[in-house]
């Protein structure tokens, strides 16, 4: 009996390790594709593998990466948020306006993040209590938030030239050679990746997304879970908006148009499913990096910006198609 059990254990451990390797296959695949692009590009353009270009690329995806984290968690729980771009811009505008009206930038930022969190909670309310679909609610909020941005600024960017240097440090400074933005990004990613993999709270997000009914039949309060993931996504948009403000030294009411597509594409390329229940932070971030490396490469190769959208869309379509077939084979 005891022998049988230990044998069984060994088998399942070994097999579980194999399974985990399998699950990481997508991440490994993405890393390989990214490395391949690096190799090809370093031959194709002498500017590609320079410190300046690496830094610029990292800066480009780091802040958006924070939004990707929120979106991935929301997708895993079975939701979606189209309003991320406008809510990010709204955070900038709120913090910018408060600052211009004499508030210190830190308090202004906290209020802006709180406002975005409240917007997320509002969307969560409409989804879980009223019973509307995420898609519709966030579509409406996308338009409303953008309207608020334009209303608050009269449609013109707010120049925030008097931002104190210690605030600008968040967006523009470096610790040693590493930009602060990257540090924040890495901290957010590592923290949420760990929580998503290992904490009971986020396990319930997976249960809810995998089957909301089965989750309810397991005693999980699924509405609460969906409410919280919806709120979290908007809160992270708020954080991203504030960092963007510090980086640009201005608040741009038209910032982030089309961001939702990029963010959703990154999460999906990284393994999140629009039907919920699957996805990893690491995968989503690799998806973000891939898209960003592709954009940067195309720019360096002097490819027209119009082509860039076509290529990005094609990458998304291929990733989802491959995933669909892999899933089919597994099922």
């Amino acid at each position, binding site marked *: 009996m005891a022998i049988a*059990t230990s044998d*069984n*254990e060994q*088998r*399942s*451990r*070994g*097999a*579980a390790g*194999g*399974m*985990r390797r399998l699950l990481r296959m997508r991440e490994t695949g993405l890393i390989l594709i990214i490395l391949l692009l690096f190799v090809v590009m370093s031959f194709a353009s002498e500017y590609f593998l320079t410190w300046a270009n690496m830094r610029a690329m990292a800066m480009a995806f780091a802040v958006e990466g924070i939004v990707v984290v929120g979106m991935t968690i929301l997708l895993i729980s079975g939701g979606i948020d189209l309003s991320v771009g406008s809510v990010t811009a709204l955070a900038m505008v709120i913090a910018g306006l408060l600052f211009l009206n004499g508030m210190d930038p830190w308090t202004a930022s906290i209020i802006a993040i709180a406002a975005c969190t409240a917007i997320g909670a509002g969307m969560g309310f409409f989804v879980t209590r009223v019973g509307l679909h995420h898609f519709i609610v966030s579509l409406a909020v996308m338009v409303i938030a953008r309207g608020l941005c334009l209303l608050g600024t009269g449609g013109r960017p707010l120049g925030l030239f008097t931002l104190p240097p210690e605030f600008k440090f968040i967006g523009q400074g470096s610790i040693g050679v590493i930009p602060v933005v990257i540090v924040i990004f890495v901290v957010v990613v590592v923290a949420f990746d760990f929580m998503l*993999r*290992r*904490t*009971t*709270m986020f*396990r*319930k997000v*997976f*249960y809810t997304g*995998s*089957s909301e*009914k*089965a*989750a*309810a*039949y*397991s*005693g*999980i*309060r699924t509405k609460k879970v969906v409410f919280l993931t919806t709120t979290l996504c908007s809160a992270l948009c708020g954080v991203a908006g504030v960092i963007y403000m510090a980086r640009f030294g201005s608040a741009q009411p038209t910032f982030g148009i089309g961001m939702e597509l990029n963010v959703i594409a990154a999460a999906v390329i990284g393994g999140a499913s629009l039907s919920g*229940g*699957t996805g990893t932070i690491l995968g989503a971030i690799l998806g973000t990096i891939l898209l960003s490396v592709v954009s940067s490469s195309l720019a360096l190769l002097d490819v027209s910006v119009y082509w860039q959208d076509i290529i990005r869309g094609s990458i998304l379509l291929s990733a989802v198609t491959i995933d669909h077939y892999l899933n089919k084979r*597994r*099922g």
Partner: protein
Amino acid sequence: MNSAAASDTILAITELSKSFGAVHALRNVSFDLRRGEIHALAGENGAGKSTLMNVIDGILQPDSGQMFLDGKEVRITSPAMAQKFGIGFVHQEIALCPDVTVAENIFMGVTSTSRAALMDYRDIEHRAAEILRRLGDIDPAALVRTLSISQQQLVEIAKALTLDCRVLILDEPTAALTEREAQTLFGIMRDLAARGISIIYITHRMAEIFDNCDRVTVFRDGEFITTMNVAETTPGAVVSAMVGRVIDNLYPPKLGEEEPGDIILEVRNLSERRRFAEVSFQLRRGEILGFAGLIGAGRSEIVRGICRLEGEVTGEVLLHGEPLRLAHYGESIDKGIVYLSEDRKGDGLFLDMSIAANVSALRVEQIATRGFIIDERREAELAEGLGTRLNLKYGHIGQPVSALSGGNQQKVAIAKMLSVNPRVIFLDEPTRGVDVGAKAEIHRILRELARAGVGIVVISSELPELIGVCDRVLVVREGRIAGEVSGAEMTEDHMMYLASIGEEQRLAS
């Protein structure tokens, strides 16, 4: 004689096999259907009846084997193609559009292939009324949403009748019908057979086979067992063929002379606005309590009400004498009262998640350090321990549950219940879609749990299962407890009488 019989055969299937992964749903089965006969297809859940019908209807493709229609070999690749060949299929699950009228639902198949751009509503309503007149009192202009389940079932049948079919497959159509509606249906079936239409009738009710069918074919565990003329056989012989090997000790021993112990759970005057009223019962230590009743009688609703899974209930629930005030199902789990869903795939399990993650879902905190960081080793140990206890057969604990057979999936669902050391388990159709072997094992496990002092309540639509497993059965009718049976009173007849007699009593008074 021989050649006459051969030319009489409308549909013949030879050496057909179909597997899903490692599971052989059908193994080299043969089947033949004659013109104008009502042919019963019997077998336990998971015997392969539905798989074969889905192959005939083109929903599934066989791995090997041949199918002949009127002597010509055919390959049917879609239900639309089956329809063209004159094969109509009334599924057990109702698949109507709820927000559309009865008439439109009935003619959906016809309108989708029609060339006319505009719908002639008056015409289809008129024609629908004609078909429905024979089936029962249903308004063709009513929205399907507003009909009862049994009326919806009749609409499904009407829909199949409008197709000009030669072969009509009925998959347990009477499960949701009242006795009178069922008799009407049998009358229609005999009319159709007299007009030369062949009917495959799936059921496991012996009475229906022996009253209405010409021949009966029995499947067991994906294999063809026998085809018999109904006139030349007995219900006993059919049941033996269905159950096969383990007919003697299919069920574990009962309490016998032992008296059940203290009251574990007591329910007093439990009511829910629409679904049930004044339900009172006691569950004692050591016994297995059954809930019988027709589909829709409110059995599941009562126990889900007790667990706070659905509905707003009034009344009292006492666990070991202590009154319970539960706000939601999570609190019910905390108190040790758990519910095993009747719909394993729909809401019982997370099919695409691992066995381990499924088993720990009811209380993830118990496998976490400091209550929130999941310890994967503890999670695996929990699942492996319960897996061993329930004789679960699996490759590894990180495997998705969808890769397991029905019986093993159900064991995972039970392991999930046991992971929280429950004090009361409500099991809703615990052996639906489970093969005979796993079924006996699940029954044995339930008896062991009862002996260990866990309160066990089993809801089942299979009366033999209730009779075999339970010490006492409550019969639910129209949301009320219509009676209690135990010991020698636990017969199918008596329970059916209690479950369905309401109508006649009303008529008498």
